C-alpha cells in the first residue's frame, strides 16, 4: 500500500512538472497521436469494407457459381443447369410451387465518379423475379421498381452517391443502349447498394447473354445448406461451387483485408518505431532535466523501483494522451466517411470507414506499449543514478 502511495505521489509530481517542459512533452504526445491516428484510420477502412461485405447476405441463402470461379464475374451457369439446381434438395418453394431461385447476371458498366470525374466500373446485376422475394431487405426508397421487359434500372443508394447521372428520371447509356433510371433502393447498407439492378431477362437480351453468372437460392432454413450443397456437388450434370451467401461475400473482402493488414503492420511498425524513439528522447530529456529532483527524492528514501514505475507511468500517461487524441481524431475525421474501391469483381464497392470501440482500444494499447518502451530505459537510468553524484548536478 505504501509502495503504491509513493508511486502514485511520484507520478503526480512528474505529471505536475509536465507544463514546465511542454515542448519536449509534445514530441511524445503528437508522435503517438500521429501513429494511432494513422493506424486507426487504416484499420477503420478495413473494418468498414469487411462490415459492408459481411453484412451482405443471409445464412439461409446459398450462392451457386461455376466450379473453380472465385467471383460472379468469372462464373457462368447455363439455363439448363439452372433448372436442375432449382429442383435440388433444400430449395425453398415459392407461392407458385417453384423453387425460390434467382438467376443473376453480373455485367460491368462504366460511369463517371462524382469525386474524380473519371470513369469507373459499376456492377450491373440482372435479377430474376424471385430475387426480390429472396431479398426482403431490399427497399425502394425513391421512384419505383423496374418493369421486366423494359430497359429500366434501379440504382443502389451508394452507387447513386458515387456515380454521376444515376438519379431517378435520368437516362444512362450502358454498352450502347439507353436505360431509364426509375428507382433507388437500399439493402441494409450491404454491398448491393453499390450496384445497379435490372431485370435479368432484359439484360440477357440486351447484352446477348444466354445464361447466368450465379444463382441465388433461398433454402428451407440454414440447416438445409449442407444437403443442398451435397446434392449439387454429387450431381454429374453439374460442375458448380456452392457457398453460403455470407461466406461468399466475406471471402470477397479477404484480399482487401489482407492488403490493408500488411499496410497497417508496415506503417504501424515504421511509425511506431519513430514514436518509440520520440518517447525515448522525451523521457531521457525529462530524466536529465530532473536529475537533481530524482536524486533528492532518492536521498529522501524513495526507492529505485518507485522511480522506475513513476517514470514509466509518466511516459505511458503522455502516450495515452497522444493515443486518445489520435483515436478521437481518427473517429472525428473518418468514422462514417464513405469511399469506394474496386471490389473482387473489378467494380466499385462503396463502404464507410468504421472506427469501432475495438479499434480505439487497440490504438490505446499500442500507445501504452510505445509509452512503456519509451519510458523503460530512461526510467532505468533514473533509478541507477548514483545519488551523491546526481545531487552535485545542481
Amino acid at each position, binding site marked *: 500500500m505504501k509502495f503504491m502511495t509513493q508511486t502514485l505521489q511520484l507520478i503526480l509530481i512528474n505529471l505536475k512538472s509536465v507544463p514546465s517542459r511542454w515542448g519536449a512533452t509534445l514530441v511524445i504526445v503528437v508522435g503517438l497521436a500521429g501513429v494511432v491516428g494513422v493506424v486507426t484510420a487504416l484499420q477503420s477502412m478495413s473494418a468498414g469494407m469487411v462490415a459492408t461485405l459481411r453484412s451482405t447476405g443471409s445464412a439461409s441463402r446459398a450462392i451457386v457459381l461455376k466450379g473453380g470461379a472465385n467471383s460472379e464475374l468469372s462464373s457462368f451457369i447455363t439455363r439448363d443447369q439452372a433448372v436442375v439446381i432449382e429442383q435440388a434438395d433444400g430449395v425453398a418453394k415459392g407461392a407458385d410451387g417453384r423453387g425460390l431461385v434467382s438467376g443473376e447476371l453480373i455485367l460491368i458498366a462504366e460511369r463517371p465518379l462524382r469525386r474524380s470525374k473519371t470513369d469507373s466500373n459499376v456492377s450491373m446485376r440482372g435479377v430474376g423475379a424471385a430475387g426480390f422475394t429472396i431479398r426482403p431487405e431490399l427497399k425502394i426508397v425513391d421512384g419505383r421498381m423496374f418493369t421486366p421487359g423494359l430497359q429500366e434500372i434501379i440504382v443502389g443508394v451508394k452507387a447513386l452517391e458515387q456515380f454521376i447521372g444515376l438519379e431517378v428520371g435520368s437516362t444512362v447509356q450502358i454498352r450502347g443502349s439507353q436505360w431509364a433510371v426509375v428507382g433507388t433502393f437500399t439493402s441494409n447498407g450491404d454491398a448491393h447498394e453499390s450496384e445497379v439492378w435490372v431485370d435479368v431477362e432484359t439484360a440477357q437480351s440486351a447484352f446477348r447473354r444466354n445464361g447466368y453468372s450465379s444463382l441465388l437460392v433461398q433454402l428451407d432454413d440454414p440447416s438445409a445448406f449442407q444437403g443442398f450443397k451435397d446434392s449439387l456437388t454429387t450431381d454429374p450434370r453439374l460442375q458448380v461451387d456452392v457457398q453460403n451467401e455470407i461466406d461468399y461475400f466475406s471471402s470477397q473482402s479477404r484480399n482487401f483485408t489482407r492488403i490493408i493488414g500488411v499496410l497497417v503492420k508496415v506503417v504501424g511498425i515504421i511509425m511506431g518505431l519513430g514514436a518509440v524513439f520520440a518517447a525515448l528522447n522525451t523521457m531521457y530529456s525529462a530524466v536529465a532535466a530532473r536529475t537533481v529532483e530524482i536524486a533528492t527524492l532518492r536521498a*529522501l528514501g*524513495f526507492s529505485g523501483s518507485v522511480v522506475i514505475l513513476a517514470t514509466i507511468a509518466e511516459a505511458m500517461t503522455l502516450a495515452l494522451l497522444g493515443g486518445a487524441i489520435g483515436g478521437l481524431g481518427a473517429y472525428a475525421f473518418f468514422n462514417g466517411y464513405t469511399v469506394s474501391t474496386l471490389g473482387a469483381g473489378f467494380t466499385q464497392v462503396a463502404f464507410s470507414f468504421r472506427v469501432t470501440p475495438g479499434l480505439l482500444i487497440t490504438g490505446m494499447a499500442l500507445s501504452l506499449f510505445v509509452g512503456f518502451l519509451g519510458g523503460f530505459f530512461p526510467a532505468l537510468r533514473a533509478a541507477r543514478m548514483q545519488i*551523491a553524484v546526481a545531487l552535485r548536478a545542481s
Partner: protein
Amino acid sequence: MPVPSAFPPPQYTLKPDPEPVMTALVSIRGVSKRYTRGKQTVEVLAKLDLDIASGDFLALMGPSGSGKTTLLNLIGGLDQPSDGEIRVNDKRIDQLSSNALAKWRARHVGFIFQFYNLLPVLTAEANVELPLLLTDLSKAQRKKAVAAALAVVGLSERATHKPNELSGGQQQRVAIARALVADPTLLVCDEPTGDLDRKTADEVLTLLQDLNRNYGKTIIMVTHDAKAAEYATHQLHMDKGALVVSGAAA
C-alpha cells in the same frame, strides 16, 4: 556564540531534549573511499576513524576536495565506503542493500542541501510532506506533522507557496522543515548557507542551533564558512581525505 532564536516557541511534536545524552551516535572505523577514473584510482578518504556523539552539532570544514562531502554522504547513507565500517545508532549501514539503505535514510536521516533541492512544482507544505509519504501516517497525521514542522521554521503563513514564490532563506527553511518532519535521528547538512547572504545565513544557522539545543537533534554540517562553523558545538577539519584538527567551537 549563542544566538537568540528568531523563530516561534517550539510547538513541534518531536520530543524536546534540552539535555541530550552524549553517546556515540555515529561510529566510523577504518573507512576509505576510492573512486576509479579510467585507469586511475583516487583515494578520497583514507582509513578514517570518527565518533559523533548523539546531540552533537558538528561542523566539517576543509578545502575543496578534502573529502568532507564524501564523508557526509557516507554518514547519510547516500554512498557506500570502499572499506571500513559505519554504524549509526548501532546499526551497520555500510553493508545495506540499495533498497534497505533507502528505507534507512527515510527513517533516520534528514537532508539539507546547499541549493535547497525543493521540488518546484510542489507547494512548501507538499515539499515538507514528501518524507512522510514513506511512512504509515494517515493523511490527517501527515498534515498535522507538516503544519508543526512549518511552524518550527516560522513559515506557517507560506505553506501554500511554491518555491519560486519564496526567498532563498525561506526556501532553505522549508528544506529544514522537510528534513525535520519525519523526526530523523540525524540532520545532514551540505553547505546549508552556501547560497545565502550573511543575514539570512545567520537566521538559518540559528534555526539549526535551536533544533540542536532545544530538540536534541544531532546535526552534521559541511561548510566552508568559518562563521557558520561557529554555530556548531564541535568542528572537524579535513584535508586530503583525513581529519587534521578537531575541537569545540569557539
